[in-house]
């Protein structure tokens, strides 16, 4: 098989994998939440409710393509496009197994950080274009939260970069053959996990869309497939955070006996399930507590982690 065919297979395969598993996650999450809360969850469509995804997709496609007459039409459509584009695009640099991955960039980690930063635009654009009070409140909250948590999202990863000496994600995985980075960088792993949950604004950091006070936050006015794109974007973002944690801290595809791809998917699924469990288990904090936690606890911790790692690398 020539390298061009392999590349095309990779590109198409990963795109299908990302979108399909994000769609499946909508079902997995509802089902698992149901099980953890001692109820059934969606179990009517198909065996175990597995076709719920298809039913939802058809429903969203048949909904009216509605843009509010009071909204800024162009920006209103651009916002969900950004929300979905940036997270799927960030998946391009994830090395899933040897030979499986869209591209092997030397600045892979920076590409990931750049793409996740851009998702702040989607919530701001969506909020401002909607011209709705709830949307604006939710959008402001989301933007401030994402900006705050982004500062130490990047900083927490620099410990890993120091140990591996590169931004290339494939080389970072290979640098973990002796020892997974979760052991020397446990604190950074926690910081990144929390920042990742906050970046994809999921519970307990879902104040931008806290339904009891803001209805749906920045996507209050969105319906049909445009809402679906925000929704799928959120699940791709969950998948992305889990994959990134596997690559950076849990040795990527490395593992005994089983094929590399299976190891990668296994570790990713465990982390995704952990994120769903967190959603099922934790309540929301207050908004000022959330911001204070980010700036007064997480940011200093990330900086101290950087200094300590620097000492350990140089000694």
């Amino acid at each position, binding site marked *: 098989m020539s390298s061009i065919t392999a590349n095309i297979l990779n590109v198409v395969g990963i795109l299908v994998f990302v979108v399909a598993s994000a769609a499946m996650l909508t079902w997995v999450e509802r089902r698992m939440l149901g099980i953890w809360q001692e109820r059934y969850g969606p179990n009517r469509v198909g065996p175990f409710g597995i076709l719920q995804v298809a039913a939802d997709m058809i429903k969203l496609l048949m909904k009216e393509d509605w843009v509010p007459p009071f909204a800024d039409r162009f920006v209103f459509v651009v916002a969900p496009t950004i929300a979905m584009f940036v997270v799927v695009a960030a998946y391009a640099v994830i090395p899933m197994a040897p030979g499986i991955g869209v591209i092997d960039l030397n600045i892979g980690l920076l590409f990931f950080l750049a793409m996740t930063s851009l998702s702040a635009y989607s919530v701001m654009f969506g909020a401002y274009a909607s011209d709705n009070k709830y949307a604006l409140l939710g959008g402001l909250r989301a933007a401030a939260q994402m900006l705050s948590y982004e*500062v130490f999202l990047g900083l927490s990863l620099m410990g890993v970069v120091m140990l591996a000496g590169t931004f290339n994600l494939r080389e970072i995985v290979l640098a973990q053959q002796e020892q997974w980075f979760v052991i020397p960088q446990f604190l950074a792993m926690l910081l990144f996990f929390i920042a990742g949950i906050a970046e994809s604004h999921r519970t307990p950091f879902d104040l931008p869309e806290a339904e009891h006070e803001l209805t749906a936050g920045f996507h209050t006015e969105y319906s049909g497939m445009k809402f679906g794109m925000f929704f799928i974007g959120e699940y791709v973002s969950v998948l992305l955070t889990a994959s990134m944690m596997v690559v950076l801290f849990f040795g990527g595809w490395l593992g005994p006996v089983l094929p590399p791809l299976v190891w990668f998917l296994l570790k990713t699924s465990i982390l995704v399930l952990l994120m769903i469990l967190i959603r099922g288990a934790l309540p929301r904090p207050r908004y000022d507590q959330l911001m204070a936690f980010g700036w007064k606890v997480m940011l200093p911790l990330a900086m101290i982690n950087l200094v300590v790692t620097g000492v350990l690398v140089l000694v």
Partner: protein
Amino acid sequence: MSYGASLITHLWPLVLFLVLVIGLISLMLAGPYFLGSRRNARATGEPYECGIVPVGSAQYHVPIPFYLFAIFFVIFDLEAVFLFAWAVAVRETGWAGFIEALVFIVILLVALLYLWRLGALDWRTFRQKRDRASVLLR
């Protein structure tokens, strides 16, 4: 092979991936336009405010803390970028580089502490500060 040509041979899978993503998104946007139903009821064109009649404009003044945090983000993230450059070269720069980075990080921490003491990280309004002396994580 020129620089541009080598760039294309290296980067084309990424470009193809991004083009495919944009194509998929266009399909998702175009699909409902042709498939979706169209209705026009009395309240279709009104902003959603939990069922009550919308009151006033949605373009209100934004609370000041949001601007403050946007500025803090610019400052701290810009400085984090300098640390990215140090992190990738930490072995090459050695102890001299470490001491310089340490000075930089300490200045950042002092700046954060200053903002904290100044009350810039405090979301409470003046009245809340007066009424409630002790709050978690003050």
